[in-house]
């Protein structure tokens, strides 16, 4: 295996100042960038990309990988503190993270997120080092039909996300799917629902929808309420103890597995894994009723998953040159810029790049505990500023972050409009998560479905001929049946109880 060749190479790389510095700088920048709402992991990486032009290729690639690791963790900070996912993949963390914050347990939530992130990253790195060559076949095994089935499996999560009404959940999901159809048709190239606006040609980016529905909606409803929730100034990050880590073990394992899976297959870059592991963690939890009401496991699962993806997404990138997410696409740009071609030959021709990538990531993951603890009190302090100042600051931050996405004022208007939509959805008690899932997955489901049918000439048998698709679709069917049955049982139980009373 083309791992680090000798023990002394490791020692040399660990103690060599450039790599150590690069790893810490990358990590710190990653956490800060990830923590800025609207600045996703890929944007955080893209912003440092120009600086790497003059760097040694091995250092440049390690830097980008460390930024990615930092950003995946950083994204959970605003998710917990201000109900705004800093990155797409921390959207699932909002649910229980913000709930814990409201209960005055922000420090605890941040600690769980940090430690779960470290565990996910370590697991991901281990998988990256061990499995890059053997597992690259999985990326190959996925055909358009399999991607369609994967998307459907992701959408089936909606069945258990509806909140108080399944119908409202489905309606929200359909709106999300409709938003995903805006832009250039993925198969024919014809433009759809763009109304002649060039900014809509490449579609509506999920991050715009998330910022609108989560962050702006929250700001709007906060300014409408008069109650002041002030966090205690004594809030310090509280790393979970052994007892807590034992409780979280199950959800972290789920996060690791789903993160590994999503990292290997092109998809939403951690957001799908985060949502699915949240859902699975609830399904397998001993205390599923706590989910949505400030469950520790509800933070641990998605945070483990998205940090795992930050490492495992490099497996298809390094072995095939296929970026499975926006962030790895930026990393691919970094590799190409330095004349490095991803693929099996990279391991033979440029082992120093691979070595410093692995060792740099390891340094960043371990340093994450320290850097995370140092940065967090500052974040808690920010949340404790008087609300008018804080809201104004966040508003400016969100909009400027969104602006840097495409340098487009159109995105700002779109996010504001979506914020209003989210506000009314909240008033009418429509859940927003299914809508976001629809936006995230709609594109993949549609394009792979239609691609499959083009391949088969319109014959639906193609979906049954692919064993992976059959397995995934079967699992989706089971999920839906399972959640519907549970909902039915619960509805009957409450009815019976009411009848008793």
């Amino acid at each position, binding site marked *: 295996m083309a791992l680090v060749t000798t023990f002394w190479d490791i020692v040399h790389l660990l103690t060599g100042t450039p790599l150590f510095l690069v790893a810490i700088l990358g990590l710190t920048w990653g956490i800060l960038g990830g923590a800025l709402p609207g600045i996703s992991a890929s944007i955080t990486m*893209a*912003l440092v*990309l*120009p*600086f790497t*032009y*003059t760097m040694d290729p091995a250092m440049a690639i390690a830097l980008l990988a460390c930024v990615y690791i930092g950003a995946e963790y950083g994204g959970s900070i605003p998710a917990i503190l201000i109900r705004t996912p800093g990155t797409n993949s921390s959207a699932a963390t909002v649910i229980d993270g913000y709930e814990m914050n409201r209960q005055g347990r922000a420090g605890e939530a941040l600690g769980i997120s940090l430690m779960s992130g470290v565990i996910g990253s370590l697991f991901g790195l281990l998988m990256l080092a061990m499995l890059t060559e053997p597992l690259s076949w999985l*990326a*190959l*095994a*996925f*055909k*358009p039909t399999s991607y369609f089935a994967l998307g459907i499996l992701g959408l089936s999560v909606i069945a258990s996300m509806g909140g108080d009404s399944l119908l409202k959940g489905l309606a929200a999901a359909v709106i999300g799917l409709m938003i995903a159809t805006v832009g*250039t*048709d*993925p*198969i*024919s*190239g*014809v*433009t759809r629902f*763009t109304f*002649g606006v*060039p*900014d809509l*040609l*490449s579609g509506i980016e999920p991050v715009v929808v998330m910022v609108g529905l989560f962050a702006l909606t929250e700001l709007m409803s906060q300014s409408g309420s008069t109650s002041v929730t002030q966090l205690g100034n004594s809030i310090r990050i509280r790393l979970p103890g052994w007892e807590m880590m034992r409780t979280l073990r199950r959800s972290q394992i789920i996060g690791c597995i789903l993160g590994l899976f999503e990292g290997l297959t*092109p998809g939403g870059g951690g957001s799908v894994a985060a949502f699915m592991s949240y859902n699975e963690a609830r399904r397998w939890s001993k205390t599923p009723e706590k989910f949505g009401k400030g469950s520790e496991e509800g933070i641990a699962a998605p945070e483990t998953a998205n940090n795992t993806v930050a490492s495992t997404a490099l497996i298809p990138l390094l072995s*095939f*040159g*296929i*970026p499975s997410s926006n962030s790895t*696409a*930026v990393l*691919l*740009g*970094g590799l*190409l*810029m330095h*004349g490095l*071609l*991803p*693929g*099996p*030959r*990279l391991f033979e021709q440029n082992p120093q790049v691979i070595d410093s990538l692995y060792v740099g990531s390891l340094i960043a993951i371990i340093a994450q505990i320290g850097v995370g603890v140092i940065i967090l009190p500052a974040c808690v302090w920010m949340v404790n500023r008087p609300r008018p100042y804080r809201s104004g600051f966040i508003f400016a931050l969100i909009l400027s972050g969104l602006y*840097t996405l*495409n*340098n*487009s004022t159109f995105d700002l208007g779109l996010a504001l409009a979506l914020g209003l939509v989210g506000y009314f959805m909240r008033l009418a008690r429509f859940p927003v998560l299914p809508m976001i899932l629809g936006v995230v997955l709609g594109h993949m489901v549609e*394009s792979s479905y239609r*691609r499959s049918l*083009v*391949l088969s*000439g319109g014959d639906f048998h193609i979906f049954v001929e692919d064993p992976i698709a059959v397995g995934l679709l079967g699992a989706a069917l089971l999920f839906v049946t399972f959640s519907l049955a549970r909902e039915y049982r619960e509805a009957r139980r409450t009815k019976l109880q009411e009848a008793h009373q």
Partner: protein
Amino acid sequence: MRKTLTGLIAAAMTAALGTFALHAEPLAYPQKVVTLVTHSSPGGGSDVFLRELSKYLGKYIAATFVVENVQGGSGAKAVARVAAAPADGSVFYATTPTYIYTSLLSKPSATYKDLEPLVNMFADSEVIYTRADGPYKTLKDVIDKAKSERGRWGASNPASLERQAAEQLKRAAGVNAAIVTHEGGGDMMLNVLNGTLDIGIGEIQELRSQIEAGKVRLLATFNPQRIPEKPDVPTVKESGYDVSLVKFRGLAGPKGLPDDVTKVWDTAVKAVLEDPEYKKRYTEEVLVANFIPHAEYPAFITNFADTTEAFLKETGAVK
């Protein structure tokens, strides 16, 4: 933020270029700073092209070159940005077939007609490839399969030169093939490697690592001539199907560029393409130098656009 970044890079580059300047006398130019605009994101195809080019241009033109990424709208915004800029040689756009396709398909406010093509520099090599352990050894094998049953051919993007090439080949050979469009060459390559598709049509740059690793076999190229680095790969035309393409890469500016500007570029681009170091770099990238001077480039672009429009009308993508 982005401004200061590009400023820093420009400063670093001028510092690096100071050493080269000793060897050649750069041509006098009316502008001190020239902004090269691309629609691709940092690290994307045209971005890398411009950044590489700007490293060497300073040797031949006495100006500082800055790359600006204007993303969004599949190039529509970048075209609008350049079309609205003063025509004094200070702003140029990196052309690829994308800007023609976007102009025709999406009908944005500023189209390729609002820009003045400056010079062409390269042609990317478009190839037909299949998996190395698959059943197809020649293009004829693929066509025969599509004749007897049904072919499955991949094109990297729906509105692209590759798709046009696939449709034209299908027609020229008179066969039945599903043309499956993707979102990017990486996606498509997986489907070729796992046997979902018979062949893929894409740029050779995207395949380099797979070719080196021996996983992919090149069956033919759509280039008018064989690729110098791959002399064994026949052209599609040689194989008996009258289809050939030029995936151009050059520069365009706002309408009404003054003569003193275009003259400098004509001379400088010709010289930079001969620059030994630059030549080494772009040959590694399998880019084929294809210099078209300012006098001929507008006609080339118009001809390309007309052919494309006719094709899009035939397939019903544009009315």
